[in-house]
């Protein structure tokens, strides 16, 4: 061979080596991703006790758990059942702020598992030992961590342990949402949040609580600084709302946005924790787009692209005031089109009802 031919051959061979190498690395990336998602799926399924590629349905309705009649009507119209029943409870000194075994029993009696969102409001306490109201909320997660509210937490925890059946406890959710006093609005810091979580969970664990499933629910992506750690959290959660045009006035963010658009970045972050993920609240307004399409897309997207989501709790509130300025109607019963889409979407065998889910959960965990 002539010299230029040799050099050309050498160069071509080196290029071939490099191209092949790029290909191998790409394949490796793909294979690792596939393996990672396989392992995640298995871990998530085993931790949630929901089979792989299945997702539980849950619902929040203001009437629940006081009355189950509206739920029965809704389920009959949809043709699907909701395994999880979500409701909310605030901290405070009144009887309604105590653990409510009768309400919990009601949920269990209907064959459902409670998802209790436990909100650490502290202005509802009348206890004299606490700081005066004007100062009480300043960095109070630190006070929780330091034991100032143990008198309340202990009673509540003891009652929960005595009750004894498995339930999801979503404590101090949306910890960066400034509408809540446990957010940084009161100078609470991530380390305060984590210490408070450890402390509260520690009180439950000291009492031998085995029935509490701890759900950690951040507000947005980028909240991992608030994550208390794998040992202290059983499920992670996210709340996904499409405010439509209302969103723009809130934050100048995009207006109408699909579930995918709202959820993908926080999902990426949460799924890296390899915990089962609960969509603890989900809904769309009709301001600026088609609600039926939104719900349909949500259900197909969750089934197709969100394998770690093991529970989807529909936020079915006709008069939500939590956004501040407006009364928002998130309810699904009002719109036959939305009902039809949800009904069709839930018939996808990705979404399941597990009638004995409470019994499954009460078997000893690993």
């Amino acid at each position, binding site marked *: 061979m002539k010299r230029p031919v040799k050099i050309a051959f050498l160069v071509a061979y080196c290029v*071939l*080596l490099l191209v*092949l*190498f790029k290909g*191998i*690395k790409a394949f*490796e990336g793909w294979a690792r991703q596939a393996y990672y998602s396989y392992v995640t799926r298995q871990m998530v399924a085993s931790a949630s006790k929901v089979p792989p590629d299945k997702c539980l349905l849950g619902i929040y309705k203001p009437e629940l758990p006081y009355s189950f009649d509206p739920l029965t009507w809704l389920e009959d119209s949809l043709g699907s059942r909701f395994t999880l029943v979500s409701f909310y409870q605030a901290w405070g000194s009144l009887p309604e702020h105590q653990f409510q075994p009768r309400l919990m029993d009601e949920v269990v009696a209907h064959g459902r598992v409670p998802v209790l969102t436990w909100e650490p409001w502290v202005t509802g306490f009348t206890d004299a030992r606490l700081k005066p109201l004007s100062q009480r909320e300043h960095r109070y997660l630190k006070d929780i961590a330091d034991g100032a509210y143990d008198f309340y937490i202990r009673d509540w925890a003891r009652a929960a342990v005595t009750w004894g059946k498995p339930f999801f406890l979503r404590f101090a959710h949306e910890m960066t949402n400034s509408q809540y006093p446990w957010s940084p609005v009161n100078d609470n810091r991530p380390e305060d949040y984590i210490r408070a979580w450890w402390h509260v969970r520690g009180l439950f664990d000291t009492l031998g609580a085995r029935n509490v499933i701890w759900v950690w629910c951040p507000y947005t992506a980028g909240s991992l600084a608030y994550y208390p750690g794998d040992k202290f959290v059983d499920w992670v959660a996210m709340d996904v709302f499409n405010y439509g045009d209302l969103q723009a006035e809130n934050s100048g963010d995009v207006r109408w946005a699909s579930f995918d658009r709202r959820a993908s970045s926080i999902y990426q972050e949460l799924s890296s924790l390899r915990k089962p993920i609960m969509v603890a609240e989900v809904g769309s307004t009709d301001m600026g787009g088609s609600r039926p399409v939104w719900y349909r897309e949500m259900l197909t997207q969750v089934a197709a692209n969100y394998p770690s989501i093991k529970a989807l709790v529909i936020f079915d509130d006709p008069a939500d005031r939590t956004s501040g300025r407006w009364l928002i109607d998130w309810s699904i019963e009002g719109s036959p089109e939305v009902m039809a889409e949800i009904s069709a979407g839930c018939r996808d065998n990705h979404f399941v009802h597990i009638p004995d889910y409470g019994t499954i959960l009460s078997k000893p965990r690993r």
Partner: protein
Amino acid sequence: MRTESRSPILDSVDIKHRIALWVLVTIGIEAALYYADWWFEPQHRRNLVFFALLSLAIFYGVYRSVVNWFYFLFIKGTPHIDAPAELSVDVFVTAMPGEPYDMFEKTLTAIAAVRYPHQSYLLDGGNDPQLIALCRRLGIHHLDCRNIKGAKAGKVNYALTQSTGEFVMVIDPDHIPEPQFLDRVLGHFGDPRVGFVQVVQGYYNQSESLVARAGAEQTYGFYGPSMMGMNGLGTTVAIGANCTFRRAAIESIGGHAVDLAEDLLTSVRLHAKGWKSVYVPERLSFGLNPADLHSYFKQQLKWSTGMFVVFFRDYFRHARTMTWNQRLHYFFAGTYYFDGLTTAITCVLPILFLYFGLWAVEMELGEFLLHVTPYALLTFVVGWFVQRWYRHPSEKGFLWRGMVLKKGTWPIFLLGLMYCVSRTKVPYLPTPKTAEKGVFTHLVIPHLAVIVFSASAIAYSLLSSDRFEVGTQLMIFFAVCNIVLMTPMVFIAHGNWFRRAAVEPVTDVSAEERPRATGRREEALS
């Protein structure tokens, strides 16, 4: 035992096999890249100095594999060319005082029986009357070389002044040539640019001991695919024995080089002068390998020191006038014995880490295995594939003895490097001709040290659990590998413990009957 039939693959290499080889080597290079790409990821580095040392040691091994693969890609057979009649050929055999008479009787008889007409010369450093008588009986010229300096090469140069043949074949006294030796070789000198022709060296004492067997195993790949690759690259080297030179070529470089690695240096000079070389991959002579560890180590010390000296002192000077292939080849050859240094590093670093927490790298063992396995697998697959070019079916198989002995000779290679760097004069060692039957504990002190320190370091790290960090498992794995690699050497060194009963009754007789091999450098280049 020694009848050799020609194999058809000598003449040409099947295109299917060549394509398969290119594919395998390409996959191998990809596997090596995959390993390296991962190894050098920034998060693996800890102490930069140790990281550099360990990387050097690890990737020196990868470099050697790739070098081997490189040779394999250019494997070329050598079609036979009939030797023209009436060439004048001289055959030189050297003798040193103390070498057994028996050996010369066998060798010289075989030389006299070589069919192509030739003049034979015994270059006798001792002027032994018995040998003089033997030469007279066989019609061999006897040259008194008592006052000739420069060991073998000195005698060869002296003999060149006493003879006139156009071609000179140099053969070691323990080597027994086949009758057709010259007929197979001389035809290749038809090209006037060819300076020397090398043939395969076979061995006939493989069964004598594990060391002899291992030493022979180290040559199988060299005289097969490796030298055939050099043949394709135009870089066939002269091995001390069984090489036939053109007198004009030798004279053009002022005679055979006189040096510790005289054969290598002669090749370097001839190639630098523009002479070509041809490899005839036929087993045309059979000799002896060192059969005990002491002799083997002496031989290896001579080769490694000689190789380093040629590399550091002569390579860069002569490389200017070589072809690119030859420059590459002698660089590859000259860096062969750095294996001693790199093995020492891989032995010491895990111990330092496990005892003192001196990190070179921090890697998960599982990830390490994932990234090293394709490369390791491909070295075996390529090594297995090229066995089709081994010179004899009996050579094929899993040659673990050769590998173990090679790996276990690291202290000697390291010593060779130190001798070279410190310019310590190593005498041209007369390799012992009598069997050494001792127990060679002193030769494996470094190996024992590695075993003891590695084992205790593993125990220490396991017992102090707070030291169990991510990279600890990998370091334990390295330490275990070192123990596994070094342990066979201890058994080899103490082989006579296990065979004493069998050996003792015949000690004196067998000592005389067993001639020792003198050194050659063949596998040094593989």
